[in-house]
């Protein structure tokens, strides 16, 4: 188990054990307040490269839109997560979530980003309502 997996499990346990109901997709997470500025956050999300792995709108290699994992449920948890990523020297190039130390991403900027991420909402049409996807499904049925 990597340090990060351990950490994530730890957070998961922490969240599940206290305030929030832990949820499979679709269930409700209780979200804490937002203190940052989403408008500033939009720029910071770009400048600090979050878009690179999470997409410009929170849909990407790892989705942040419609997030229900718990880490995004409150600011403190999110900040802890950002600061506690692996900071050991990897010899193999990796594209996993970087560590964001306080010295390189201030609490203020991080919380602005948090506010911006919280504004993400991906609400795509159902497959049945997207002609291209529906056509693929229908053709496969034959």
């Amino acid at each position, binding site marked *: 188990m990597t340090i990060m997996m351990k950490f994530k499990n730890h957070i998961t346990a922490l969240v599940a054990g206290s305030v929030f109901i832990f949820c499979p997709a679709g269930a409700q997470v209780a979200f804490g307040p937002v203190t940052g500025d989403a408008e500033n956050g939009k720029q910071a999300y770009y400048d600090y490269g979050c878009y*690179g792995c999470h*997409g410009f709108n929170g849909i990407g290699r790892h989705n942040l839109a419609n997030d229900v994992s718990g880490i995004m449920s409150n600011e403190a948890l999110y900040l802890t997560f950002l600061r506690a990523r692996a900071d050991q020297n990897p010899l193999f190039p990796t594209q996993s979530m*970087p560590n964001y130390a306080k010295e*390189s991403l201030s609490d203020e900027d991080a919380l602005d980003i948090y506010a911006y991420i919280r504004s993400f909402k991906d609400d795509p049409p159902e497959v049945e309502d997207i002609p291209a996807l529906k056509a693929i499904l229908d053709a496969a049925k034959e």
Partner: protein
Amino acid sequence: MTKKTDQENGGISRRAFIGSSAAAGAASILPKGAAAAPQATASTVPVSLPPSPQQMAREVGDARPPTTFRAAVRPGSDLIVQVLRDLEIEYVASNPGSSFEGLQESIINYGEIPNVMPEFISAMHEESAVDMAHGYAKSEGRPICALVQGTIGLQHASMAIYQAYHGLAPMVILVGRDDKHFLQAHTADDVAGVVRSFTKWDAQPKTLKEALDDIHEAYRQAITPPCAPTVVVLDAEVQKEEAGDLEIPAYRPPVIPTITTAQADKIASGLLSAKNPRISVGRFRTPEGIRRAVELADLVGASVETKSPEGPMSFPQRHPLVGPGADGDADYELGLEVPGAQVSLNGPHLRTLTERDLTGINFGGIRPPVRPRQSPPGENDLMADAEASLPVIISAVQRQTDARTRKTIEQRTVRHGKVNHEARMDALREALEKKREGWDASPVSTARIYAELWPLIKDLDWCIGGPTRFSGMHHMDLWDHDRPYSYLGGHPAAALGYGLGAATGAALAARDRDRIVINVQTDGDLNYTPGSLWTAAHHKLPMLTVMHNNRAWHMELMYVQYMSGVRGRGHDRAHIGTTLRDPYIDYAKMAEGYGMKSEGPISDPNLLAAALARGVESVKNGEPYLIDVLTQPR
């Protein structure tokens, strides 16, 4: 042949040439104080004089060049072209060079119908020429030629050759060599040495007769497994000499070793006596291998695993036998170019070529201790080409099948068909749920590109020419890979600057076969050798390029982002050297500049489908098209 002076050859004297250019060049080395002088000089003494009436007549083709010795009546290069024609080499992709003007002239002028089989294809870079041969080879399972200038053109070509070597792509690379008459900087004693570590075979023939034989051998070596690029270096003299009555040698195809009849009998009885046989199919050399594999699977009613969404020359994805099958775990498994089955047939691997690495560079991780590319052969791994062995297995199966087994097989086939269809529907429903994520996002989601392309091309004969990993490989779930060339696979050596050239080569194959090529093109990859845009426009190749324009070498950006996190010295500079910003590149304009129809950039996803429809329509009419789409990074 002895060296003629320039006058004897009908040109201006070398001494006179150097004299005049030295005078012209003097202006640029005048001392600073004389800064105005060059202009004054330019207006009074023209650097280049207007052509004389004689020169003009020559220029417009009204006068023959002065000759002091007769051109060859039957130049050696005509015979070389005839050999290529007999081998049915469709194209020679080339960037021109003086070391093969003889051969080039023969390609474009020799024969009843000149410049057909082979046709001279203009490449803007030798790397592109080889990438074209690579794309063509993966699509058709046979070689075309790249023709490059020795030694410089070959050096330009070298990385692409390296990639083709890893890609098991058969091609014959012809290299011009002019050792005496032109530039010393362009010659070498051993021209092919620079690429020997990653080519399968090469020759530098001394005579025309040898050259013709060597082209045959290069062709045989290229198509004999393991398939790979081969090289023939052609001296200028050999191309230009009078062939007299030299006969063109007859071509003998290679004999590719197969398994024995006894081995085939054992495999046949394994397949026929099993309750639930399964066949895993990897990549064959040619479409013939796929035809045979389908025949075998149908004969024994085995469930089949295919690699078709991952690369070329593999079992059709939507064949009813493809999938998990109805009967759970297999009790007999045959691997065809897939190791590790109960019995696996694998053609010889590239590792057997390591002895060609005479320089000891140990190129490309084919040095086993670093990362073995294949598990060592198991007890039942037979080192034999699967494609060549299939006819022997099929005969054995036919011999051993009786009426009762046939009945069992028929029933099993129906069962597999049902279960595989259900499995496919489940997988598709799950995939579609993922694909609709970010459907309306701007910039455009990569899944949407593939989803909206499919209805436009599904009834056409199509081929995905370039790699798709960075753009999400959504075709794997959404499209039906049922042809040998449906998807030509990724960068075999993970070396960028390949997609456009490979797709252009696939489009060369497609042009006269009523097929279109789709190239979902990343921006970083395009910018190494974008010149193939012109090649596609010039030769009217049916290629639709859709940009996956994330304005970055995005993979590297993610690596640097992670590294910045590890070191904790700031994330806001990770874009330096990893992004294509300031200024953004306008790919529609770039294509337009090269003479290709284009549109974009498109960032509104609702505008995408109509643009794709225009693109497909254009390509169907033989006009390549580029659509610049601003996309999500991944």
